[in-house]
């Protein structure tokens, strides 16, 4: 009875996972938790939509949209990255929140909240699974999430750039002394993360709604996925994203919980944090 909801949840969850992985790679390389991740996806989707309305070829529209997200991310990282490098994580995250709000404001100003839809060519094809129709976009989302997670893990472990990224994650200054080209590697991480954000935005716009606000807040389930991965493990981030997506969807048929489905990312994140703290003793000291 729940199978259709699990399939629907896996599709959306894959995109949460994909975004989580993109955010994690950037976080591990630069220490920046990019809260503008969803906004970059929204930008990619809306730019692609605009080009398609103007009669552009599909591949061109999607490439420009994703390229714009990657470019904006790269630009932000290259311009502000060095200034943020030595700041505390919370300052870095807050700075990215500024970017999120700026992008969201610009998108809302230019595109307003009119009715729009973005249908990828993969949205109309698919196959039947019992009573349920599964679209190619849904399959693609899951495949992409798994492939990008596996590919990124492999890349970080095997390639020189990947090794440099891991080195940066451990110690930025030491890496630079060892000859790692810090600015270049960081810029690459910003670019790659922006591109993955753009792809997630396009797929999400197809599977859900094409509105700037909806896509911008994609960052919340993606963050929950990162929490499941403890901001370190790509595999667990993938699992976290899928878990949030499935939990959101399977609550639908139950009236007592269906109103609270969007709390799924928070519930998952809190549960993981509590679980990880289970052996820690909390000491409450009086302020003197």
């Amino acid at each position, binding site marked *: 009875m729940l199978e259709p*909801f699990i399939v629907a*949840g896996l599709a959306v969850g894959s995109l949460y996972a994909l975004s989580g992985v993109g955010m994690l790679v950037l976080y591990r390389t630069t220490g920046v938790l990019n809260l503008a991740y969803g906004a970059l996806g929204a930008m990619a989707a809306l730019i692609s939509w605009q080009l398609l309305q103007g009669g552009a070829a599909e591949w061109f529209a999607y490439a420009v949209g994703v390229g714009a997200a990657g470019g904006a991310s790269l630009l932000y990282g290259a311009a502000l990255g060095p200034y943020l490098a030595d700041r505390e994580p919370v300052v870095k995250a807050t700075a990215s929140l500024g970017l999120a709000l700026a992008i969201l404001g610009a998108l809302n100003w230019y595109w307003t909240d009119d009715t729009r839809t973005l249908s990828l060519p993969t949205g109309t094809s698919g196959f039947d699974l019992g009573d349920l129709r599964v679209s190619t976009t849904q399959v693609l989302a899951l495949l992409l999430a798994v492939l990008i997670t596996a590919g990124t893990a492999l890349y970080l472990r095997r390639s020189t750039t990947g090794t440099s990224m891991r080195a940066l994650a451990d110690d930025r200054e030491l890496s630079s002394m060892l000859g790692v080209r810090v600015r270049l590697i960081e810029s690459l991480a910003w670019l790659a993360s922006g591109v993955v954000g753009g792809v997630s935005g396009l797929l999400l716009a197809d599977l859900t*709604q094409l509105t700037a606000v909806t896509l911008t807040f994609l960052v919340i389930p993606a963050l929950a996925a990162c929490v499941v991965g403890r901001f370190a493990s790509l595999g667990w981030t993938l699992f976290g994203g899928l878990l949030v997506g499935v939990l959101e*969807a399977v609550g*639908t048929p139950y009236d007592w919980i269906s109103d609270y*489905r969007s709390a799924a990312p928070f519930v998952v994140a809190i549960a993981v944090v509590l679980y990880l703290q289970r052996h820690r003793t909390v000491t409450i000291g009086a302020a003197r």
Partner: protein
Amino acid sequence: MGTGERATGSPIKIRALATASGGIDFSSAPRSATAYFKCVNANGGINGRPVDYAYEDDALNQQKAAQIAAKLAADRSIVALAGDATFIGCAGANPIYKRADLYSITGTGVAQACFESSNIAPINAGPRISGVATLQYLQAQGKTSRFAQARHNIPGVGDWVADGVENYAKDKKVRIVETVVRDATSVDANSGILELKKADPSAVLIEDVGPVAVALLKAAAAQGLQEKVVWSCLTSCYDAGFPKQVGPQWEGFIANSELQLVDAKTPDNLQWRTILQKYGSPRDPRDTFGQSGFLAAKFLTDTLLKLDPKDITRETVAKAVVGIKGFKSDILCTPWYFGSADRHNANHTTRMAVIKGGKYVELEGCKPVEDPGLAPVIAREQRDGLAG
């Protein structure tokens, strides 16, 4: 007015409260009202006095809306409000307006509170009437053997609309086989459609905003529900761009229209479009809620023109606004009134539209909506001779 010369006297201050940011841009009504007042000012104004009109954005924040309402109420030089369109502000604003004797000819009301207030009267019919009207149409066409609705869970809107639809269904013995409730912050349209699919409905009414409706229709098409089910929506889906966005496979999709069809060639509707063309911006939406802002501005202007231009104060305007009745326009189906009451829903006769040939065309002309909840409104109309 009508002199063709710019008004130069002392300005008459009129304001509006609208939700223009915060995730929803709901400023169609005050934008059209702005264009209308610009036209008034360029053509002699209110017996020589120009209108100083502006709208304030509550940014979808109830506290901010209440603060703006208090500020507007405290500024006694503001004589009235027109073309308001706040998504969340009516409930907090009305008691403030009431204490300050400030009246609003609201362009677009959405929440229950906008229709159940003493000092606020919307031009549009509201989503509840729009929903009941759509079910009424579907029932008349014999499509409601297994009726289902898809709504959101925003309090005072989603539950209020569904309550109206359910009351009508109960009254007219329509069987509701499923009510899918969407969490307003959820992005997942597929799960809702899967719920509907299980219920095997003959007709579905979407009680949600346009972008969500598009997402639901896309998921419905993917699940093969498009042909089997009659799909319909509130006026929120009646938007000139909607047919193009859903694509040619959704020919036959039905939406209610609380006002005249936006491309109708009737005199007032043409005047609205011409004024937007000349005094508005190309970005001003040409939608139902733009029409309602235009009418709000027009009705207030017509009211002010009847007053002594030297004696236009909040008190004299309040009295004149409450006394509005029998205001006619081809954008409405029946005359509009304000009147003194704690509830205002003068517009409860609507039209139906259908997507045909890639655009919305009229499916059914003006039809009174038989919402059982309107009984007190109709009784008052008859008692006070308001229906004109």
